[in-house]
């Protein structure tokens, strides 16, 4: 069986600047994969190519078995996308958001009703189905956005910083939803700035200046780098010279007052 995401030498240049430089990796079906990198490392460009919004300069990639260049439309029909901030319409009710997205994803009326009912029941949102999304607590919004992204049962779902800002219990409830989706065979592709969030992934890759500088399970990467957290791995890779930009505490270069 082909992997859920299969990428070979994927490259994108903008003029003389190489944003994504011949990256190669694959993600298995049902895997929770963390795609990490500092601002400007090339993550967004890579993701735009994976979801068929940007043509690669060279290389190839398939998502859910479809080629991102020649079958971009099929790719988009077989993926879901959730961003913490932008994926629900705040002025529509819970039910209206479900109906809207069901329609966009090409589901029939009966399917939308059935899956919408099931979704609302699973999230215990019954009392809030007629409420505007803007009135929901952040944690509910996130769970709803994730469920809506799965409404058309996509093979691969892309999540952008899915659990920012919520309390630690709600955050774990959300990760359990992700694990449950993965256990049903959905492939989950997560991008985040928060390395403690990335620790929940099965495997992660870290992009530095357009290339994949490291890939493996969080435990493998920590062991290889002789550190105890992904945060330490990330900072080592993203600043290879090890030069801190700020002076350490209490040195003579500390800012002086008055």
């Amino acid at each position, binding site marked *: 069986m082909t992997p859920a995401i299969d990428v070979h030498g994927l490259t994108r240049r903008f003029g003389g600047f190489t944003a994504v430089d011949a990256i190669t990796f694959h993600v298995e079906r049902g895997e929770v994969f963390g795609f990490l990198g*500092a601002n400007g490392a090339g993550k967004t460009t890579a993701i735009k190519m994976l979801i068929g919004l940007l043509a690669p300069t060279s290389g190839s990639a398939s998502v859910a078995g479809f080629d991102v260049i020649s079958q971009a439309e099929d790719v988009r029909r077989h993926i879901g996308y959730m961003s913490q901030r932008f994926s629900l319409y705040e002025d529509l009710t819970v039910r209206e958001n479900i109906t809207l997205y069901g329609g966009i994803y090409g589901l029939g009326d009966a399917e939308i009703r059935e899956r919408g009912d099931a979704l609302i029941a699973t999230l215990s949102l019954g009392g809030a189905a007629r409420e505007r999304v803007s009135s929901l607590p952040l944690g509910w919004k996130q769970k709803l956005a994730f469920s809506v992204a799965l409404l058309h049962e996509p093979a691969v779902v892309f999540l952008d910083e899915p659990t920012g800002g919520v*309390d630690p219990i709600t955050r774990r409830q959300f990760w359990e939803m992700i694990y449950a989706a*993965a256990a049903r065979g959905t492939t989950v592709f997560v991008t985040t700035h928060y390395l*403690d969030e990335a620790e929940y992934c099965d495997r992660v890759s870290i992009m530095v200046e357009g290339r994949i500088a490291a890939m493996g399970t969080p435990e493998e990467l920590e062991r290889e780098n002789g550190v105890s957290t992904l*945060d330490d791995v990330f900072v080592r890779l993203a600043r290879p010279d090890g030069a801190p930009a700020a002076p350490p505490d209490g040195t003579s270069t500390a800012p002086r007052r008055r």
Partner: protein
Amino acid sequence: MSAVVSPLVVEGVSKRFGDVVALDAVSIELRGAELFGLVGPDGGGKTTLFRILTTLILPDAGRASVLGLDLLRDTWAIRARVGYMPGRFSLYPDLSVEENLRFFASVFGTTLEEGYELIAPIYRQIEPFRDRRAGALSGGMKQKLALSCALVHRPDILLLDEPTTGVDAVSRREFWDLLGSLRSSGLPIVVSTPYMDEASRCDRVALIQQGRVLAIDAPEAIGERFPDRLFAVRGSDRYAMLQALRGYARAASVFPFGDELHYSERRTDVAPDAVADEVRDFLHSSGFGDAEVVPIRPGIEDTFMALMGASGAAA
């Protein structure tokens, strides 16, 4: 100076917006030039507290003083001496880096040159881009500019509302290093964050949830408030193992925690290693042959969750 005035005292401050209780009798007292963290999720009341302390809104009840000045009586004196960085990027995107700094300096009746020495360690990192429009800066650079603007009038206390939200891990670490240096130079700092892993960079933290302070202590001491025994569980099929453990009769709580599970139970009459052995045997007999269980010290997130549960605040 024998009668040391605390740079920040908050006593029983409450604030409600309609039916929503944003702050519920919050009390906090800084001990000199601390780096003090307000740690908790969005909607917990952190921003409301900052807006009260910067005299932008009034509390419904309670008292507070900033730098020994009373919130209600000395409003204008407080404003002149506080450095405030709001949660949203609040600089002028169409002004250049340098124009923003000059503007903020002039509002406080000073100049960039007068404040330069204090902001130099931060400002020098973005000075090469001084002619760039602020709106065209990267997230990390915007944050450094915002901090420079909050510091340019040489305030006596810094109030920073979620300064690291949306910024990558490298820039976040640099930013916390900068805060550490400022604190060491004698500047008290109150900083809020929804990210528990950042709490360890503070001298002391207040855990805040739904308008209430759950605990105030040094980050390493917060873990000691965890009421039960805690164990880390590792194994290949995490999600199935999580469900199996939830069905184990002795479990008090089971949560995913990065690439581990954290399992707690109430028994204190059995040695931790013996409990770990029992749990491991249970998992082995349930088909998780590679499961490992070890006793661990609870961290801030563990304690936060336990205290949330205890206060009935779980969402």
